[in-house]
């Protein structure tokens, strides 16, 4: 899309779940759903700052910890779409349980799945599937957050070369307090790299090997989820517990995080859906001025925009997981877009829901305030949204930027054509009702290409430092990808026909597709406009001043 291409064949027909996968999913959801209804009490989990043992035991039995583990190791072997759909339910039931699950399945066990040897998998996966072993993922450190590569926790080979001796600290480790198997990223100076980058490797460390889990953090939200520092003091780990290629561990860490972000986005979708339902219930029951407040336009505005954002998010998340399942690959950039859009959609949905509920939105008698607290962290972990915004546009434009810097201006220039003639890609074939939206998408793609070309030409390899430009390009590509997802689903349902889908369902789909496309168009246009017409220079200068002064200049009451 950065190059102005829009090929419907890439994302049409929409990759709906096949009947067999749907059957398995329905069984798993059926069990989890009933269990959640009967045993998961989000309010008391929040108050107790822990998920009760009995709930964990029950969920283990149902297969919570085996969702992503292949069948031959005793897992449910859910694909990305099925996993994401179950994650929606978990997040609707309780944010802390969802994060606990994600800490294990999305990131905790992923190194083993991606890079483990047969022996390593056979040793650990069956026990991870039953929940006898619970996993955590330990990358962050006090001085290595967004810049994870700066980690200093170190593993040195013992004299007999049979063990690594690990020393250092990890911080904010999800599941750290209850996990008994940690996927740990450490420096390994014994395996130097030829390219001069730090040598980082991945180790599987069992609890018995002797690390200490520190005190639970006191948190704003997801209080039932365990978040602790881990302390390693001369912890001895057998060499056979190194996963993947020695010295290549940082790549592995990025692959794990890149592949997992649709899971978090699915969680945000589930929580948003639940919040919307609660908001509808509340606003139709609550009467003021002799009417249900849902009859007032400023409430309807909120309900409507929640639904439109949610619809776009749903189409986008399941397009991404569906394509990932269809082609058996991870889609890092698309998944990052899902994470950004999912976490920010949830944040605005929960904000709207709190507002709809008035005073009851702010007190603990209703789920709104807890869900607001729980929602906040999503924009911070698994890659902050800032880092991801920079990542998407810079990775998406790396190829073109390199080509451009090598090419002779005017020739061999992937953007020249677009910059000069602003060629618009063929619009997707859509039902008549969505023709305007389809045209708008083509225009948006062309506009994105023009903006990308301009950015690359102006800033070249230094584009990465121009974060406002890069973020605006990411927002533009987010908007276009989401519109493509929405239209793909609408077209595919339309093609199945009213017979199969139901005439009313089709009507609803078109209305939501139209509304969310328009919302996304506006979002994309704002981003693109901000590149042409902005006060960035003044803004950045102001930030500079304030940092220099350590706050506002003198006060004048």
């Amino acid at each position, binding site marked *: 899309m950065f190059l102005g291409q829009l090929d419907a064949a890439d994302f049409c027909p929409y990759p709906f779940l096949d*009947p067999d996968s*749907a*059957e*398995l999913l*329905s*069984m*798993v959801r*059926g*069990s989890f759903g*009933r*269990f959640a209804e009967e045993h998961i009490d989000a309010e008391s989990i929040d108050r107790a700052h822990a998920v009760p043992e009995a709930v964990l035991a029950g969920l283990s*039995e*149902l*297969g919570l910890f*085996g969702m992503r583990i292949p*069948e031959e190791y*005793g*897992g*449910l072997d859910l694909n990305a779409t099925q996993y994401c759909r179950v994650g929606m339910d978990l997040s609707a039931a309780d944010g802390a349980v969802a994060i606990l699950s994600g800490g294990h399945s999305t990131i905790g066990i992923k190194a083993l799945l991606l890079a483990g040897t047969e022996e390593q998998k056979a040793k650990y996966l069956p026990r991870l*599937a*039953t929940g006898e072993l619970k996993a955590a993922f330990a990358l962050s450190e006090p001085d290595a957050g967004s810049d994870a590569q700066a980690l200093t926790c170190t593993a040195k080979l013992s004299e007999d070369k049979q063990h690594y001796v690990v020393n250092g600290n990890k911080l904010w480790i999800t599941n750290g307090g209850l996990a008994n198997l940690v996927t740990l990223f450490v420096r390994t100076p014994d395996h130097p790299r030829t390219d001069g980058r730090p040598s980082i490797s991945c180790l599987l460390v069992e609890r018995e090997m002797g690390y200490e889990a520190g005190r639970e953090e006191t948190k704003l939200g997801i209080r039932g989820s365990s978040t602790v520092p881990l302390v390693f003091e001369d912890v001895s780990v057998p060499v056979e517990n190194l996963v993947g290629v020695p010295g290549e561990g940082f790549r592995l860490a990025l692959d794990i995080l890149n592949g997992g972000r649709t899971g978090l986005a699915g969680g945000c979708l589930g929580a948003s859906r639940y919040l919307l339902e609660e908001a509808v219930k509340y606003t139709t029951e609550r009467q003021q001025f002799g009417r249900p407040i849902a009859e007032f336009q400023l409430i309807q505005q909120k309900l409507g925009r929640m639904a439109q954002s949610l619809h776009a998010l749903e189409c986008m998340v399941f397009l991404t997981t569906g394509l990932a399942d269809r082609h058996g690959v991870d889609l890092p950039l698309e998944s990052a877009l899902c994470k950004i859009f999912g976490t920010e959609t949830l944040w605005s949905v929960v904000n709207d829901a709190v507002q709809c509920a008035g005073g009851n939105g702010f007190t603990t008698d209703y789920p709104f305030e807890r869900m607001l607290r729980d929602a906040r962290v999503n924009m911070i972990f698994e890659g902050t949204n800032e880092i991801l915004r920079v990542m998407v546009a810079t990775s998406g434009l790396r190829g073109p930027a390199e080509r451009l810097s090598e090419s002779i201006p005017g020739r061999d220039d992937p953007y020249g054509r677009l910059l000069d003639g602003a060629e618009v890609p063929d619009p997707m074939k859509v039902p008549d009702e969505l023709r305007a939206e389809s045209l708008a998408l083509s225009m948006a793609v062309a506009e994105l290409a023009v903006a990308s070309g301009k950015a690359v030409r102006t800033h070249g390899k230094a584009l990465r430092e121009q974060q406002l430009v890069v973020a605006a390009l990411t927002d533009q590509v987010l908007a276009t990808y989401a519109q493509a997802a929405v239209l793909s689903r609408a077209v595919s349902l339309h093609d199945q026909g009213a017979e*199969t*889908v*139901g005439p*009313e*369902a089709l009507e609803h789909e078109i209305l939501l597709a139209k509304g969310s496309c328009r919302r996304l168009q506006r979002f994309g246009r704002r981003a693109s406009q901000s590149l042409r017409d902005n006060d960035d220079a003044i803004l950045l200068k102001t930030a500079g001043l304030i940092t220099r002064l350590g706050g506002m200049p003198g006060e004048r009451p």
Partner: protein
Amino acid sequence: MNIVVCIKRVPATDSRIKVGADGTSIDDSQLEWIISPYDEFAVEAALQMKEAAGEGEVTVMTMGPAESTKELRTCLAMGCDKAVLLTDPDSGTRDAHTTAHALAKAIQGLSPDLVLCGKVAVDRDQGQVGSLLGGILDMPCITEIKALSITDGKATVERAGDSGTTETWTVSLPAVLTTTKGLNEPRYAGLKGIMAAKKKPIDEQEAQLGEAALTIKSLELPPPRREGRIIGEGPEAVTELVRLLREEAKIL
């Protein structure tokens, strides 16, 4: 102990029901489907009886559209040994008589010691199939049981009698029993069960339908309930209430 459990795929209980374009069936395009909750008690009871006997086989059976494999698979995941799907694309429109005949035909071939079903499917709420099965199969039938034990080829069951009494019955097997709430806590389909269920057989055969005893002329949704009204407070309101009940609601 050879047990057959009959289940039905019904719209989820929180579904919004709409009448289809033909005016005689339900528009099922938007519905989510579940196992009728009373049938889950029957499945659980069958599994418990088999476990108590230490041997035997539980067959779960339904008449329904091809998609019913989903509900059958869930029962297999709970622990049933095999499943029979009597396919009938129009099962949504069949009356209890037609259904009971089809089920009975298939059950006869299995010569079970016990046939269990829920007391009523929560879609049509008619509660006839169990009793009809007893009649057709020529087996004793007790409905709405809330306790069950089996010894020496006899089943002892409890059911709620009139005015809060509890009736206890003993019947010789084979028998047909229909189950209700309170009998047990249906288990969840867990990881092991779901994986095992993938390999269990579902025998699909065309339903041998019986003759219909009922035809649906038309279906209508009940009129929306009118909003409540507060007439007044205390004894003063009584006269007005009685007047309204008599003249407006016409129930006095």
